[in-house]
């Protein structure tokens, strides 16, 4: 086993920022229920309010427009389940529209929720993407109609990094009377996000992608936007999301966002430089590779590469044995027979989808880490390709 430990899977999750860790450690003794009226409750409540303000400021929202949730998946489910909720008691039902328009490359928490809604009779359209992963505006133009309740398109793709023009998509949705949601789980802290400028009605985010703790996220809900509660119970979040405030998680999220707002600029420049070094190095040292995603409009630390003639899980495990941690779009690693739906949607051949590796870099990635990958990967590829049934046979 290798002595190296090079973590390049930041899009899956991130380690805690030392500043977040310190804030959490300090907060461990805060036990009061943030909804309680007595002093320990009020103390916890203050901490929650402070975090809410930090997050609101960071995305250009008002504090009351921020709802704390159990993470990105819950935020996404909350928004999608508003379509045709059928309860008759909330503001969303009055709209009378039953359609959802989303994209083919969304996170499973959107795609699978959309498919579930289909079973309930909601009409769902998955707009296609081009070879770089940009959602086809023509598909959206054709799909968004007077029946569309909601358009949901992610801001930055977790697998290939491609960024969407959320502002233009929001304009289209609003022109046709539909609401707009964007899943910003991968983008917040890496790309400037201003909800007023984007004009979206809903936005999802999760702390653990930005050096915060797991199990805590937010849902931005524009003031006045129709809303219906997904998790019913107590009166937390003005009755919009029940459950005792996750004080510790909320404090961690607030700290993570506060640190990101300070460090983002330098961090992004560093990530972009490292990504470019890795991209150029791979192109130079490994033949027959294909860089997936958009060349410029992409998450700064994400690099998705397909290696011809090699199966992704084999690449991943050989890299892991050498201390390098990445992820793959191969079917074998996913437990299904289908490779990455994102890569297939961009139109790459199945061989390239199965042979894809996602390197996602982050705040602890160093120049030496990239050098180590560039030194370790070429012999691994040579080894896998030398035993491949499909490599070296092309004329």
């Amino acid at each position: 086993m290798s002595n190296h430990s090079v973590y390049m899977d930041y899009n899956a999750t991130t380690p805690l920022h030392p500043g977040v860790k310190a804030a959490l450690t300090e907060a461990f003794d805060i036990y009061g229920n943030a909804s309680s009226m007595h002093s320990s409750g009020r103390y916890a409540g203050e901490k929650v309010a402070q975090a809410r303000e930090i997050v609101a400021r960071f995305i250009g929202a008002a504090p009351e427009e921020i709802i704390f949730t159990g993470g990105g998946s819950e935020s996404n489910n909350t928004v999608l389940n508003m379509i045709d909720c059928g309860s008759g008691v909330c503001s969303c039902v009055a709209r009378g529209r039953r359609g959802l328009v989303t994209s083919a490359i969304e996170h499973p928490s959107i795609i699978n929720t959309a498919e579930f809604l289909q079973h309930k009779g909601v009409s769902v359209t998955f707009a296609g993407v081009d070879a770089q992963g940009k959602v086809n505006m023509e598909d959206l133009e054709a799909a968004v109609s007077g029946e569309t309740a909601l358009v949901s398109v992610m801001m930055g793709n977790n697998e290939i990094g491609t960024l969407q023009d959320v502002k233009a998509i929001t304009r289209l949705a609003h022109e046709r009377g539909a609401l707009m949601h964007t899943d910003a789980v991968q983008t917040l802290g890496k790309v400037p996000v201003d909800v007023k400028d984007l004009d979206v009605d809903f936005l999802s985010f999760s702390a653990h992608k930005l050096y915060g703790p797991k199990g805590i996220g937010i849902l931005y809900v524009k003031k006045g936007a129709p809303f219906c509660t997904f998790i019913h119970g107590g009166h937390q979040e003005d009755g919009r999301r029940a459950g005792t405030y996750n004080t510790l998680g909320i404090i961690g999220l607030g700290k993570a966002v506060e640190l990101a707002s300070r460090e983002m600029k330098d961090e992004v420049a560093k990530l972009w430089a490292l990504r470019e070094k890795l991209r150029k190095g791979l192109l130079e040292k490994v033949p027959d590779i294909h860089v997936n995603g958009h060349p410029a409009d992409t998450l700064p630390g994400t690099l998705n590469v397909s290696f011809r003639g090699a199966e992704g899980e084999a690449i991943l495990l050989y890299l892991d044995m050498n201390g390098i941690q990445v992820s793959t779009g191969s079917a074998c690693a996913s437990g299904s027979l289908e490779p990455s739906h994102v890569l297939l949607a961009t139109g790459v051949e199945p061989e390239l989808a199965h042979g894809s590796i996602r390197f996602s870099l982050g705040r602890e990635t160093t120049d030496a880490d990239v050098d180590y990958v560039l030194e370790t990967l070429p012999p691994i590829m040579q080894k896998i390709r030398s035993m491949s049934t499909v490599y070296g046979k092309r004329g």
Partner: protein
Amino acid sequence: MANGWLYTDIVKDHFTNPRNILEDEDSYADDGKGSVGNIKCGDQMLVAIRVKDGRIEDCKWKTYGCASAIASTSMLSEVVKGMPLEEAYHVTPADITKKLGGLPEHKIHCSVLGDKALRAAIEDYYRRTGQEDRIEREKAVTICQCMNVTDKEIEKAVKEGARTWLDLQNKTKIGTVCGQCRKKAEELLHEYEHLYG
């Protein structure tokens, strides 16, 4: 996603140092060759054998496949060397999995490719040497009791293009009475789709 090392030390060893790779396919004078799986599904396996005095003298292979496929075929290629053809013809994925000290359950399907490719290579040898009579028709297992549909019929339907439960029902009438066999049948459908899709 692989959850750390789910694999045994033997699997790791065969994955790291795979035995008997067919490095130069063109210059290898094989007596039998078989290929199964396809790239669309993410794995493919080729096995080539040399035969002497009714025994497998040499067994080489290549794959586009994951760690389990690599390790199990590497093990298989070691195990069958020197083995009488008849015996090698009946080596099962379970035999190989046992020798590897086990595989994670969701990975077992990746390991059947080597065994199927070896069977195909032996059958190729039988065909080349005029011994077609030694090629066995695998025994069929009834999956749908109501309509008496076997795994062989499901395999045939998939080869003819069936990809969904509905396709399968249209071709074979499977599960059209009580429907209890659906889960098992769909598993087979996916398995065969993987092999022939």
